[in-house]
């Protein structure tokens, strides 16, 4: 998505990305970025919370209007949860047993093979 935003912008189209993965988006280097400190998959606000979705989109609009330079990030003030416990649960490899790791590896090999077949047939 970052690469697409960069391409649009370089060709004269202003862009704004709404996302949750702050490090990945900023590592890419994008023109404008609204960051929500939410689990991946909630770039546009909290599920079933119209107000939070409208607030997040409004930040994107404000950024289009006011960002002074490229690589401007605005952090949504919304909180996913009262504490940070959820942040430890994403891809927590430390919690996996060797058997589970082997199982995940097998599953991922299948996923990769499926993706490859689909890509080559596309």
């Amino acid at each position: 998505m970052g690469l697409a935003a960069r391409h649009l912008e370089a060709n004269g189209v202003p862009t704004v990305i709404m996302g949750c993965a702050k490090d990945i988006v900023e590592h890419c280097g994008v023109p404008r970025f609204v960051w929500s400190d939410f689990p991946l998959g909630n770039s546009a606000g909290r599920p079933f919370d119209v107000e939070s979705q409208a607030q997040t989109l409004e930040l994107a609009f404000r950024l289009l209007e006011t960002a002074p330079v490229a690589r401007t990030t605005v952090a949504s003030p919304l909180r996913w949860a009262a504490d940070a416990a959820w942040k430890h649960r994403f891809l927590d490899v430390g919690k996996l047993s060797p058997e589970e790791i082997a199982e995940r590896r097998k599953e991922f090999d299948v996923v990769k093979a499926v993706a490859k077949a689909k890509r080559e047939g596309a």
Partner: protein
Amino acid sequence: MSGPKIPFAPEDDVPIRYMDRTREYYQALGFSPYRWAHFTDAPFTPLATPLARTRVALITTAAPFQPEAGDQGPRAPYNASAKFYKVYSAAVDSKPDLRISHVGYDRANTVPEDLNAYVPLARLQEAVAAGRIGSLAPRFHGAPTNRSHRVTMETDAPELLRRCREDGADAVVLVPS
């Protein structure tokens, strides 16, 4: 020196380091590390018209539901067969059924049961009705979640630009899922 404790936030309440976390995870599984796109600068084009007269396009990484492609429900495991590899477009007023089972969203913490949390189409339409933005481009566009940066840069991004221009979009909101 002692006094009242300063109420700092907990040390671990910081942005998740997704690149480190993902790297560690896949290394533990025995895969070679992924290299994320990285630039130290970025292009910039100021908005040329007031937002109330701007036509906005939406780009998403969500995928249209494909009946033949297996479980794409909110609790589906990572489903590579639901991926797409070509840019697609659909009418913004078509009430699209868009899913994210084909990407690595945070399955430990969220259940994607509300489309509006990852595709802000309804909120954008409300913004048009409220006069906050001029209009919505007639189509939204789907960006493939391709692991090849080269394909993204040389094929998909130019195609997205072409479609946005075709629709007369003055600005674009991109929402990864």
